[in-house]
């Protein structure tokens, strides 16, 4: 069976772009990815795209060209990008198509998301009484995790510190100002133990990738990146998830654990083979928990990993080298693809000031989102 290569990378800077719609930011990213691959939209046989608040992704054909291609809209929460990539992976692996585009974009209103209970199978009382906030869930999950695994507040601060430091050398990031340990520690509290600088915010941006059969890749780039696995998994009974009025007595592994294990199995490698990773960091606790849930360390090891700088750009396993969601914000439709964009640049050796020095061969991306869904991609050169 043919392998799948990523041959074009495009992004529209994340943050706030009042002059452009979400769709237009998607078009900017798509054109950049096509130009990066030295090709054009007419050569695309398929596209998968997604956006939460930016409109129907397939409206992009009005901007990119009405070529008649198969364009499928994907909507899967925070795993939208992962699901689009998974669909593209399958379309090429199966032999149905040779080449296509994956694109995601978004443009969210300022402030936290305001989900509606009915959309999540819940009754209105749950939202009306003030329980339907993702910030509360993240705070409660890391609170319990800190209790169970001996994670200190210092480690929470260090994750944010790293994110903004990496964001400060990422030209397309939203937050490009490094923050000191003290500035982070003394920020206003949002939901104990997490404060203002420990959460990412909804934002805007676009990201796109051109994929093709690996045996065609050299036509488009001298530095193709192979997509070794693209896995999406949903939750099991008992996993501790957002928007849950009750949780089962026994805590089951999260969908991240099952997605990660499946992705490693498909790729035929293990966590020890990964040189650079992107782990969903909608808040600092998520990055900490996801280090262990993806198999990179034991629960509790994060405490000394952060202290020793293991996940810094020059560390043994650099994590979120572009500042992750914390520094880039989260335009939901584009966020998962940004992770893949960054890893591809790291594997190509074209990540500029944030290039990891360990000559990376294997990269890893992970998203996690409501109501308990996870997407993992493994990439290699």
């Amino acid at each position: 069976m043919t392998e799948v290569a990523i041959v074009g990378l495009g992004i529209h800077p994340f943050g706030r772009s009042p002059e452009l719609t979400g769709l237009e930011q998607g078009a900017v990213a798509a054109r950049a990815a096509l130009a990066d691959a030295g090709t054009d939209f007419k050569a695309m046989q398929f596209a998968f795209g997604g956006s939460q608040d930016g409109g129907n992704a397939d409206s992009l054909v009005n901007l990119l060209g009405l070529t008649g291609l198969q364009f499928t809209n994907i909507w899967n929460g925070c795993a939208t990008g992962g699901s689009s990539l998974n669909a593209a992976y399958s379309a090429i692996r199966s032999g149905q198509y040779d080449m296509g585009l994956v694109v995601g974009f978004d443009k969210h209103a300022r402030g936290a998301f305001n989900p509606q209970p009915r959309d999540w199978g819940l009754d209105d009382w749950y939202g009306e009484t003030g329980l339907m906030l993702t910030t509360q869930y993240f705070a409660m999950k890391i609170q319990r995790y800190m209790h169970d695994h001996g994670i200190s507040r210092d480690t929470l601060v260090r994750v944010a510190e790293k994110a903004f430091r990496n964001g400060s050398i990422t030209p397309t990031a939203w937050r490009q100002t490094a923050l000191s340990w003290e500035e982070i520690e003394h920020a206003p509290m949002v939901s104990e133990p997490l404060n203002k600088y420990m959460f990412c915010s909804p934002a805007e941006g676009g990201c796109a990738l051109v994929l093709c059969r690996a045996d065609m890749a050299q036509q488009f780039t001298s530095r193709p990146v192979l997509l070794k696995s693209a896995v999406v998994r949903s939750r099991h009974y008992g996993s501790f998830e957002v928007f849950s009025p009750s949780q089962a007595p026994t805590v089951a592994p999260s969908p991240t654990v099952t997605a990660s294990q499946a992705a490693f199995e498909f790729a035929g490698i293990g966590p020890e083979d990964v040189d650079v990773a992107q782990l969903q960091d909608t808040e600092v606790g998520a990055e900490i928990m996801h280090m262990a849930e993806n198999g990179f360390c034991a629960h509790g090891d994060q405490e000394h990993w952060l202290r020793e700088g293991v996940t810094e750009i020059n560390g043994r396993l650099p994590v979120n080298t572009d500042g992750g969601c914390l520094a880039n914000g989260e335009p939901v439709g584009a966020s998962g693809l940004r992770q893949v964009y960054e890893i591809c640049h790291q594997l190509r050796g074209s990540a500029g000031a944030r290039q990891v020095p360990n000559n990376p061969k294997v990269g890893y991306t992970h998203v996690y989102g409501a109501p308990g869904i996870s997407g993992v991609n493994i990439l290699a050169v």
Partner: protein
Amino acid sequence: MADQLPLHPGLFSWPSKRPELLGSRCLECGEHAFPSQDSCRACGSEQTEIVGLGHSGTLWTWTVQSFMPKSPYLTDETPETFRPYGVGYVELPCGLKVESRLRENSPDSLAIGLDMELEIIPVRCNDEGTQLMTFQFCAAEVS
């Protein structure tokens, strides 16, 4: 017209001397759910019964909501009169962990493992002036 009504039916037994949470239990696999469900989220069975879940438990995790949430939160409060509230999961005798508002709202008064008790409290008034009631947990009195 009643002065007080539950915000949503079926969440708790009330009025009653000792209100308790109401949930469902699967007749096939025995797993509990809150709020009650007609089908079991563990095994998919459609055979469930309504059961009392008790009025006490221990705090499994917690946080504090420090700012007034936007919609879908519905309240008579204003950002000026808003008081932070605790939120936690309380582990009940059957093992189920139920998410709830907590009366305690400062980190100093909350800790994992704390004994908690159910109380029924007003959330807001409806257009007719009736107080709508919901549940919350508070730290149990030390006897």
